[in-house]
Protein backbone atom coordinates (compact mmCIF):
# COMPACT_ATOMS: atom_id res chain seq x y z
CA UNK A 1 0.00 0.00 0.00
CA UNK A 2 2.75 2.39 0.89
CA UNK A 3 3.87 2.46 -2.72
CA UNK A 4 0.82 4.60 -3.45
CA UNK A 5 2.13 7.27 -1.12
CA UNK A 6 4.99 9.69 -1.53
CA UNK A 7 8.41 8.24 -0.92
CA UNK A 8 9.94 11.63 -0.55
CA UNK A 9 11.63 12.54 2.65
CA UNK A 10 9.84 11.28 5.74
CA UNK A 11 9.89 14.72 7.23
CA UNK A 12 8.12 16.13 4.17
CA UNK A 13 5.48 13.48 4.58
CA UNK A 14 5.03 14.42 8.24
CA UNK A 15 4.61 18.05 7.31
CA UNK A 16 1.76 17.36 4.94
CA UNK A 17 -0.37 16.82 8.01
CA UNK A 18 -1.41 18.75 11.04
CA UNK A 19 0.64 17.09 13.75
CA UNK A 20 0.50 19.98 16.17
CA UNK A 21 -0.47 19.64 19.80
CA UNK A 22 -0.33 22.17 22.62
CA UNK A 23 2.96 22.34 24.52
CA UNK A 24 1.12 20.61 27.32
CA UNK A 25 -2.07 18.59 26.79
CA UNK A 26 -5.23 20.30 27.98
CA UNK A 27 -7.03 18.86 31.00
CA UNK A 28 -4.29 16.37 31.64
CA UNK A 29 -1.98 16.72 34.59
CA UNK A 30 1.68 16.18 33.91
CA UNK A 31 3.17 13.30 35.89
CA UNK A 32 5.02 14.03 39.12
CA UNK A 33 8.70 14.82 38.79
CA UNK A 34 9.48 11.60 40.61
CA UNK A 35 7.86 9.63 37.80
CA UNK A 36 9.78 11.53 35.14
CA UNK A 37 12.92 10.86 37.16
CA UNK A 38 11.99 7.18 37.29
CA UNK A 39 11.72 7.20 33.51
CA UNK A 40 15.16 8.75 33.14
CA UNK A 41 16.59 6.18 35.54
CA UNK A 42 14.74 3.33 33.84
CA UNK A 43 12.92 2.38 37.03
CA UNK A 44 9.41 2.19 35.57
CA UNK A 45 7.79 -1.12 34.82
CA UNK A 46 6.46 -1.82 31.34
CA UNK A 47 2.96 -0.47 31.90
CA UNK A 48 4.10 2.67 33.71
CA UNK A 49 6.67 3.30 31.03
CA UNK A 50 4.12 2.98 28.28
CA UNK A 51 1.72 5.27 30.10
CA UNK A 52 4.42 7.86 30.52
CA UNK A 53 5.52 7.59 26.90
CA UNK A 54 1.91 8.17 25.87
CA UNK A 55 2.01 11.38 27.87
CA UNK A 56 5.43 12.32 26.52
CA UNK A 57 4.24 11.88 22.96
CA UNK A 58 1.69 14.63 23.60
CA UNK A 59 3.60 16.85 26.00
CA UNK A 60 6.46 18.95 24.78
CA UNK A 61 7.07 20.28 28.26
CA UNK A 62 7.70 16.86 29.77
CA UNK A 63 9.83 15.82 26.80
CA UNK A 64 11.88 18.91 27.39
CA UNK A 65 12.25 17.95 31.04
CA UNK A 66 13.61 14.52 30.10
CA UNK A 67 16.07 15.97 27.63
CA UNK A 68 17.21 18.52 30.17
CA UNK A 69 17.66 15.95 32.93
CA UNK A 70 19.70 13.60 30.78
CA UNK A 71 21.86 16.45 29.55
CA UNK A 72 22.48 17.90 33.00
CA UNK A 73 23.33 14.52 34.51
CA UNK A 74 25.74 13.67 31.72
CA UNK A 75 27.34 17.05 31.95
CA UNK A 76 27.97 16.77 35.68
CA UNK A 77 29.14 13.17 35.37
CA UNK A 78 31.69 14.14 32.76
CA UNK A 79 33.04 16.78 35.16
CA UNK A 80 33.45 19.20 32.33
CA UNK A 81 30.90 21.43 33.95
CA UNK A 82 30.96 24.54 36.07
CA UNK A 83 32.57 24.20 39.46
CA UNK A 84 30.48 24.07 42.56
CA UNK A 85 30.30 27.71 43.63
CA UNK A 86 31.34 28.24 47.21
CA UNK A 87 29.09 31.25 47.62
CA UNK A 88 26.08 29.13 46.69
CA UNK A 89 27.02 26.46 49.20
CA UNK A 90 27.53 28.91 52.04
CA UNK A 91 24.26 30.64 51.30
CA UNK A 92 22.25 27.41 51.17
CA UNK A 93 23.78 26.22 54.41
CA UNK A 94 22.27 29.16 56.25
CA UNK A 95 18.85 27.70 55.51
CA UNK A 96 19.72 24.56 57.32
CA UNK A 97 17.01 24.17 59.92
CA UNK A 98 14.36 26.17 58.17
CA UNK A 99 12.52 23.03 57.24
CA UNK A 100 11.89 22.04 60.82
CA UNK A 101 8.56 22.66 62.43
CA UNK A 102 7.90 26.04 63.92
CA UNK A 103 7.57 24.77 67.46
CA UNK A 104 10.90 23.05 67.25
CA UNK A 105 12.51 26.13 65.83
CA UNK A 106 11.09 28.46 68.44
CA UNK A 107 12.19 26.17 71.21
CA UNK A 108 15.72 26.34 69.95
CA UNK A 109 15.59 30.02 69.30
CA UNK A 110 14.44 30.35 72.88
CA UNK A 111 18.07 30.17 73.85
CA UNK A 112 18.44 33.70 72.69
CA UNK A 113 15.05 34.96 73.56
CA UNK A 114 12.57 35.72 70.86
CA UNK A 115 12.78 39.46 71.48
CA UNK A 116 16.50 39.47 70.96
CA UNK A 117 16.06 37.54 67.75
CA UNK A 118 13.50 39.98 66.44
CA UNK A 119 15.74 42.86 67.39
CA UNK A 120 18.61 41.31 65.50
CA UNK A 121 16.47 40.80 62.45
CA UNK A 122 15.00 44.26 62.55
CA UNK A 123 18.51 45.66 62.75
CA UNK A 124 19.32 44.30 59.32
CA UNK A 125 15.98 45.21 57.83
CA UNK A 126 14.84 41.61 57.64
CA UNK A 127 11.49 42.28 59.20
CA UNK A 128 10.06 45.14 57.28
CA UNK A 129 6.52 45.92 58.29
CA UNK A 130 5.05 44.17 55.28
CA UNK A 131 7.04 41.02 55.64
CA UNK A 132 6.25 40.66 59.31
CA UNK A 133 2.55 41.32 59.21
CA UNK A 134 1.25 40.27 55.85
CA UNK A 135 -0.19 37.00 57.13
CA UNK A 136 1.01 33.48 56.44
CA UNK A 137 4.23 33.65 54.53
CA UNK A 138 3.70 30.77 52.24
CA UNK A 139 4.83 32.13 48.91
CA UNK A 140 8.20 31.29 47.58
CA UNK A 141 8.83 34.91 46.82
CA UNK A 142 8.42 35.85 50.43
CA UNK A 143 10.56 33.00 51.64
CA UNK A 144 13.27 33.90 49.23
CA UNK A 145 13.00 37.58 50.01
CA UNK A 146 13.42 36.73 53.67
CA UNK A 147 16.40 34.63 52.90
CA UNK A 148 17.99 37.35 50.85
CA UNK A 149 17.49 39.94 53.53
CA UNK A 150 18.72 37.71 56.26
CA UNK A 151 21.69 36.77 54.17
CA UNK A 152 23.19 40.06 55.24
CA UNK A 153 23.80 38.53 58.62
CA UNK A 154 27.06 36.84 59.33
CA UNK A 155 26.25 33.32 58.33
CA UNK A 156 29.35 31.79 59.84
CA UNK A 157 28.53 33.01 63.30
CA UNK A 158 27.03 29.78 64.57
CA UNK A 159 28.40 27.47 61.96
CA UNK A 160 29.77 25.00 64.47
CA UNK A 161 27.00 24.90 66.99
CA UNK A 162 24.23 22.61 65.80
CA UNK A 163 22.08 23.50 68.79
CA UNK A 164 21.81 27.13 67.93
CA UNK A 165 19.48 27.71 65.07
CA UNK A 166 20.12 30.51 62.73
CA UNK A 167 17.52 33.24 63.25
CA UNK A 168 16.56 33.24 59.60
CA UNK A 169 14.01 30.63 60.54
CA UNK A 170 11.97 32.92 62.67
CA UNK A 171 10.69 35.02 59.81
CA UNK A 172 9.50 32.00 57.91
CA UNK A 173 8.35 29.64 60.58
CA UNK A 174 6.84 31.79 63.26
CA UNK A 175 3.61 32.11 61.34
CA UNK A 176 2.89 28.46 62.06
CA UNK A 177 2.86 29.11 65.73
CA UNK A 178 0.06 31.64 65.69
Amino acid at each position, binding site marked *: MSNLLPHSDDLDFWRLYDTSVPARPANVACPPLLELAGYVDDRLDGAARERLEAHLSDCLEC*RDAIVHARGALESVASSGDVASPLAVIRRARTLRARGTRGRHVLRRIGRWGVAAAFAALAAVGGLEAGAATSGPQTT*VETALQDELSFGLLDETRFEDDPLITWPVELGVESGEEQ
Partner: protein
Amino acid sequence: MDVDIQACIDGDPRAWDQFVTRWSKLIFSAVNRAVLRGPGAGSPRDLVEDIVQEVFVRLIKDDCRLLRTYDPARAGLSTWLTLVARSVAIDRLRRKARPVRSLEASEETLAVARTPEDQPTADTPSIPLHVLTSRQRLVLRLLFDEERSVEEVARFLAVDPQTVRSTKHKALSRLRAHLSLQPESPGMGRSG
Protein backbone atom coordinates in the same frame (compact mmCIF):
# COMPACT_ATOMS: atom_id res chain seq x y z
CA MET B 1 29.00 10.52 50.05
CA ASP B 2 25.58 9.35 51.13
CA VAL B 3 23.47 12.05 52.66
CA ASP B 4 20.82 11.21 55.19
CA ILE B 5 17.66 12.73 53.75
CA GLN B 6 15.59 11.84 56.77
CA ALA B 7 18.05 13.67 58.98
CA CYS B 8 17.65 16.74 56.75
CA ILE B 9 13.90 16.47 57.13
CA ASP B 10 14.33 16.14 60.87
CA GLY B 11 16.21 19.43 60.86
CA ASP B 12 19.71 18.15 61.50
CA PRO B 13 21.94 21.03 60.41
CA ARG B 14 24.94 18.80 59.78
CA ALA B 15 22.93 16.59 57.46
CA TRP B 16 21.73 19.72 55.69
CA ASP B 17 25.31 20.96 55.29
CA GLN B 18 26.22 17.63 53.75
CA PHE B 19 23.21 17.72 51.50
CA VAL B 20 24.08 21.18 50.24
CA THR B 21 27.73 20.30 49.73
CA ARG B 22 26.89 17.09 47.95
CA TRP B 23 24.25 18.42 45.60
CA SER B 24 24.98 22.08 44.95
CA LYS B 25 27.09 21.42 41.89
CA LEU B 26 24.41 19.31 40.26
CA ILE B 27 21.69 21.80 41.09
CA PHE B 28 23.82 24.69 39.91
CA SER B 29 24.49 22.90 36.66
CA ALA B 30 20.83 22.00 36.11
CA VAL B 31 19.71 25.56 36.83
CA ASN B 32 22.40 27.00 34.61
CA ARG B 33 21.32 24.77 31.78
CA ALA B 34 17.68 25.74 32.18
CA VAL B 35 18.47 29.45 32.32
CA LEU B 36 20.66 29.23 29.24
CA ARG B 37 17.80 27.67 27.31
CA GLY B 38 15.07 29.79 28.77
CA PRO B 39 13.71 33.09 27.52
CA GLY B 40 16.13 35.99 27.65
CA ALA B 41 19.73 36.02 26.67
CA GLY B 42 22.64 34.57 28.54
CA SER B 43 22.93 33.11 31.97
CA PRO B 44 23.63 35.87 34.47
CA ARG B 45 25.56 34.42 37.37
CA ASP B 46 23.51 36.29 39.96
CA LEU B 47 20.26 34.97 38.57
CA VAL B 48 21.55 31.40 38.49
CA GLU B 49 22.80 31.64 42.06
CA ASP B 50 19.49 33.08 43.22
CA ILE B 51 17.61 30.26 41.58
CA VAL B 52 19.91 27.65 43.09
CA GLN B 53 19.13 29.09 46.47
CA GLU B 54 15.45 29.04 45.64
CA VAL B 55 15.74 25.33 44.85
CA PHE B 56 17.10 24.71 48.33
CA VAL B 57 14.40 26.92 49.85
CA ARG B 58 11.67 25.04 48.04
CA LEU B 59 13.02 21.68 49.08
CA ILE B 60 12.71 22.49 52.75
CA LYS B 61 9.92 25.02 52.95
CA ASP B 62 6.64 24.02 54.57
CA ASP B 63 8.31 21.44 56.72
CA CYS B 64 10.25 19.93 53.81
CA ARG B 65 7.09 19.24 51.89
CA LEU B 66 8.91 18.83 48.59
CA LEU B 67 11.88 16.92 49.95
CA ARG B 68 9.49 14.49 51.62
CA THR B 69 8.02 13.54 48.25
CA TYR B 70 11.31 12.02 47.18
CA ASP B 71 11.29 8.23 47.24
CA PRO B 72 14.62 6.47 46.66
CA ALA B 73 12.79 3.36 45.47
CA ARG B 74 11.37 5.24 42.52
CA ALA B 75 14.27 7.30 41.17
CA GLY B 76 17.80 8.39 41.91
CA LEU B 77 18.15 11.53 43.99
CA SER B 78 20.41 13.18 41.43
CA THR B 79 17.84 12.71 38.67
CA TRP B 80 14.97 13.96 40.79
CA LEU B 81 16.95 16.99 41.97
CA THR B 82 17.85 17.83 38.40
CA LEU B 83 14.17 17.88 37.49
CA VAL B 84 13.27 19.90 40.56
CA ALA B 85 16.01 22.40 39.76
CA ARG B 86 14.81 22.79 36.21
CA SER B 87 11.25 23.20 37.34
CA VAL B 88 12.16 25.93 39.81
CA ALA B 89 14.29 27.68 37.22
CA ILE B 90 11.53 27.70 34.65
CA ASP B 91 9.06 28.89 37.21
CA ARG B 92 11.35 31.75 38.08
CA LEU B 93 11.95 32.67 34.45
CA ARG B 94 8.22 32.69 33.82
CA ARG B 95 7.63 34.81 36.86
CA LYS B 96 10.20 37.24 35.55
CA ALA B 97 8.43 37.37 32.23
CA ARG B 98 4.95 37.61 33.77
CA PRO B 99 5.28 39.15 37.23
CA VAL B 100 1.57 39.05 38.02
CA ARG B 101 1.24 35.32 37.82
CA SER B 102 0.70 33.68 41.17
CA LEU B 103 3.22 31.01 41.90
CA GLU B 104 2.83 28.14 44.17
CA ALA B 105 5.77 25.86 43.73
CA SER B 106 4.37 22.50 43.00
CA GLU B 107 5.86 19.20 42.12
CA GLU B 108 4.04 19.30 38.84
CA THR B 109 5.30 22.67 37.69
CA LEU B 110 7.24 22.13 34.55
CA ALA B 111 8.93 23.42 31.51
CA VAL B 112 8.85 26.21 29.06
CA ALA B 113 6.11 26.52 26.50
CA ARG B 114 7.45 26.58 23.01
CA THR B 115 4.85 27.42 20.44
CA PRO B 116 5.46 25.98 17.00
CA GLU B 117 6.11 28.84 14.63
CA ASP B 118 4.62 27.21 11.61
CA GLN B 119 1.06 26.55 12.65
CA PRO B 120 -0.83 24.44 10.17
CA THR B 121 -3.71 26.05 8.36
CA ALA B 122 -7.29 25.15 9.16
CA ASP B 123 -7.67 22.80 6.20
CA THR B 124 -4.54 20.78 6.92
CA PRO B 125 -5.70 17.23 7.72
CA SER B 126 -4.72 15.77 11.04
CA ILE B 127 -2.32 12.91 11.06
CA PRO B 128 -3.94 9.75 12.49
CA LEU B 129 -1.52 9.28 15.36
CA HIS B 130 -4.04 7.10 17.14
CA VAL B 131 -3.02 4.18 14.91
CA LEU B 132 0.44 4.25 16.47
CA THR B 133 1.74 2.94 19.77
CA SER B 134 2.86 5.44 22.41
CA ARG B 135 6.47 4.67 21.67
CA GLN B 136 5.97 5.17 17.93
CA ARG B 137 4.23 8.50 18.46
CA LEU B 138 6.96 9.61 20.79
CA VAL B 139 9.69 8.68 18.33
CA LEU B 140 8.03 10.60 15.49
CA ARG B 141 7.50 13.66 17.68
CA LEU B 142 11.12 13.69 18.72
CA LEU B 143 12.41 13.10 15.21
CA PHE B 144 10.09 15.34 13.24
CA ASP B 145 8.52 17.93 15.55
CA GLU B 146 11.69 18.54 17.48
CA GLU B 147 14.01 17.57 14.64
CA ARG B 148 16.27 15.58 16.88
CA SER B 149 18.80 13.16 15.47
CA VAL B 150 18.38 9.41 15.71
CA GLU B 151 21.18 9.37 18.27
CA GLU B 152 19.46 11.99 20.42
CA VAL B 153 16.21 10.08 20.32
CA ALA B 154 18.05 6.90 21.24
CA ARG B 155 19.50 8.68 24.27
CA PHE B 156 16.08 10.01 25.22
CA LEU B 157 14.58 6.52 25.17
CA ALA B 158 17.70 4.79 26.48
CA VAL B 159 17.74 2.40 23.52
CA ASP B 160 20.17 1.90 20.67
CA PRO B 161 19.89 3.96 17.47
CA GLN B 162 18.91 0.94 15.42
CA THR B 163 15.82 0.52 17.58
CA VAL B 164 14.88 4.11 16.88
CA ARG B 165 15.27 3.63 13.13
CA SER B 166 13.19 0.51 13.20
CA THR B 167 10.47 2.13 15.34
CA LYS B 168 10.36 5.08 12.99
CA HIS B 169 10.11 2.82 9.97
CA LYS B 170 7.27 0.80 11.47
CA ALA B 171 5.44 3.93 12.55
CA LEU B 172 5.62 5.56 9.13
CA SER B 173 4.61 2.36 7.40
CA ARG B 174 1.62 2.07 9.64
CA LEU B 175 0.63 5.69 9.04
CA ARG B 176 1.02 5.38 5.30
CA ALA B 177 -0.94 2.17 5.23
CA HIS B 178 -3.74 3.79 7.20
CA LEU B 179 -3.72 6.94 5.06
CA SER B 180 -3.70 5.02 1.82
CA LEU B 181 -7.19 3.82 2.72
CA GLN B 182 -8.31 7.44 2.80
CA PRO B 183 -8.41 8.94 -0.71
CA GLU B 184 -8.67 12.48 0.67
CA SER B 185 -5.28 12.37 2.30
CA PRO B 186 -2.67 14.80 0.95
CA GLY B 187 -0.19 11.96 0.66
CA MET B 188 -2.53 10.23 -1.75
CA GLY B 189 -3.15 13.42 -3.63
CA ARG B 190 0.50 14.07 -4.12
CA SER B 191 1.35 10.65 -5.33
CA GLY B 192 -1.60 10.28 -7.65
